[in-house]
């Protein structure tokens, strides 16, 4: 009981030394504010690519219908409806659109010619450079063309093979079965469902960025510990080993409060119990990581020089902006990677727990070897 009260007392006072700094409060408050501003500003999505949809004949019903499908549906592609093909082409030429899909005036006739077996293009695509994003975006165009194309194929089949000429009968049997269900459903590896559009792709990197903030906080605590270490000179040697972990953990947990508030405001939290648990585990893992680095690098100047490298590794290798599928052996050295994967995978949470234990153990062993339990020696 005495040890627990003593620990609480230490916890409170070490926390107080951080919370008495106005600058630290400024950082804590800035985090949710910045994220809230971004979430509100990004509520109307931009798009991964910007496609101008141009109609050669604005009055063409088939083209208008396809254009409507393209522009009305929520998507990671931004589609802009232009009143003419020339306008769409100009947007591409001037760099204001990544590509243009030009729907011809005789789109309906082209569907019929296709269903009769003629090879005829349906849409002209104008681009400055044909990159992978534009290639993948074509599937959206096909999905918008397809209802009309499939009807044309069905009608052609009905006429040629089933000898049915009545438009009414053809329409009736085309629409006779409408399952209204998806052919493919989405799930995460733990079986939980996912809505592909559940959150804006502009906002989802926020979790990763904030996770990096916590990692940076742990590293800064490691740098800062060298300055403060003398103040703990009266601590018994045996307990002194745990002191840096405690300092790093306190800072990361303070940052975690701000980060959780930010995640809540941005709508990125799906389950609060899971969120709180994984965050607490992540903070502990960061404390271990920072302590290992502190014992390896020694001087605060070296830690400071290494900081941007760790940041860059985090930005590049962790699933924040990209899901890089290489260098897995390096990725698992970063607690941020395990945390981000662990949000949707219980397995990775276990890995994170194992990582935490290992990093704390390694930190303690390195401290023993190095003898950096001595204040001011790091």
């Amino acid at each position, binding site marked *: 009981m005495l040890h627990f009260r003593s620990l609480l007392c230490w916890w409170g006072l070490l926390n107080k030394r951080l919370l008495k700094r106005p600058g630290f409060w400024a950082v804590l408050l800035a985090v949710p504010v910045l994220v809230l501003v971004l979430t509100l500003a990004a509520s109307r999505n931009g798009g991964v690519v910007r496609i101008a949809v141009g109609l050669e004949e604005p009055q063409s019903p088939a083209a208008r219908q396809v254009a409507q499908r393209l522009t009305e549906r929520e998507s990671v592609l931004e589609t802009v409806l232009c009143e003419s093909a020339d306008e769409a082409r100009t947007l591409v030429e001037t760099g204001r659109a990544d590509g243009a899909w030009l729907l011809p005036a005789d789109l309906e006739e082209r569907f019929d010619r296709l269903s009769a077996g003629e090879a005829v293009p349906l849409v002209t695509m104008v681009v400055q450079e044909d990159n992978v994003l534009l290639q993948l975006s074509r599937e959206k165009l096909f999905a918008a063309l397809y209802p009309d194309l499939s009807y044309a194929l069905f009608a052609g089949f009905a006429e040629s093979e089933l000898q049915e000429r009545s438009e009414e009968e053809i329409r009736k049997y085309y629409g006779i079965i409408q399952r209204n269900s998806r052919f493919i459903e989405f799930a995460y590896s733990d079986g939980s469902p996912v809505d592909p559009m559940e959150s804006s792709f502009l906002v989802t990197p926020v979790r990763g960025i904030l996770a990096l903030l916590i990692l940076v906080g742990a590293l800064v605590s490691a740098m800062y510990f060298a300055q*403060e270490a003398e103040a703990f000179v009266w601590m018994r*040697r045996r307990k002194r080993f745990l002191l840096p972990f405690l300092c790093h953990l306190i800072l990361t947990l303070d940052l975690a409060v701000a980060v959780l508030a930010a995640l809540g405001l941005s709508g990125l939290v799906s389950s609060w119990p899971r969120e709180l648990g994984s965050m607490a585990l992540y903070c502990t893992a960061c404390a271990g990581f920072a302590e290992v680095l502190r014992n390896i690098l020694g001087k605060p100047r070296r830690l400071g020089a290494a900081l941007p490298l760790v940041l860059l590794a985090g930005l590049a290798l962790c699933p924040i902006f990209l899901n890089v599928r290489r260098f897995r052996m390096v990725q698992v050295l970063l607690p941020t990677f395990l945390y981000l994967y662990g949000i949707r995978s219980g397995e990775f949470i276990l890995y994170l727990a194992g990582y935490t234990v290992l990093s704390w153990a390694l930190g303690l062993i390195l401290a023993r070897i190095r003898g950096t339990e001595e204040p001011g020696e790091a």
Partner: protein
Amino acid sequence: MESIEVRNVQKKYRRKTVLRDVTFSAGPGECIGILGGNGSGKSTLLKTLAGVLRPDGGSFTLGGADLFRDDKRRAAAVGYVPQGTPLLRELTAMDHLRLWYRPEALRRGLNGGVLEMLGVTGFLKTPVGKMSEGMKKRLSIGCALASNPRVLLLDEPSAALDLVCKANILDYFCMYRNRGGILLIATHDPQELELCTGYRLLRDGVTEPYEYRGDLRRLSEDMKS
């Protein structure tokens, strides 16, 4: 009442040997002045005895028990006042005392105990960032005395203090010594030297007995040679 014995203590920093063979002893009521030039290893010696640094050899016994091997006993028996004032700027005096004192000991210290004697009670709610050097030093001494130690290691305790504060602190040390405590002081200060009952000169990593008779000029020449 137990005596301390320091035997063959060694300490190296990477390849440099700072303490080669330090040996001396002190009994209750004694105050040993550790003399030596800048960089001679006085602070290193005190830090090693205090447990801040790990020794590379030798022993430090109190009543026959080697304090280098008994961390718990050393923490209870030895108090250390470092050269600077290693305190956390944002915390108050009371916060620091709560870190190092048990609740009952803190109550006793504040009510007629050592903390009251040091005058710490007068600025309990003051943050360290707003304290004067004298206040910080008194607080440091108060923190060092948390375990009611029998041995007190002092590294230039009255440096940068005003005359009144210095006098008060030296009076306290005098009282501590008279009550049977053992003091080791690393110092150049004449008033602190006056407090001592014996002297050791630290030179080339080795201590030797020294006779100081109030002649600072001679002392500085001896330190150089």
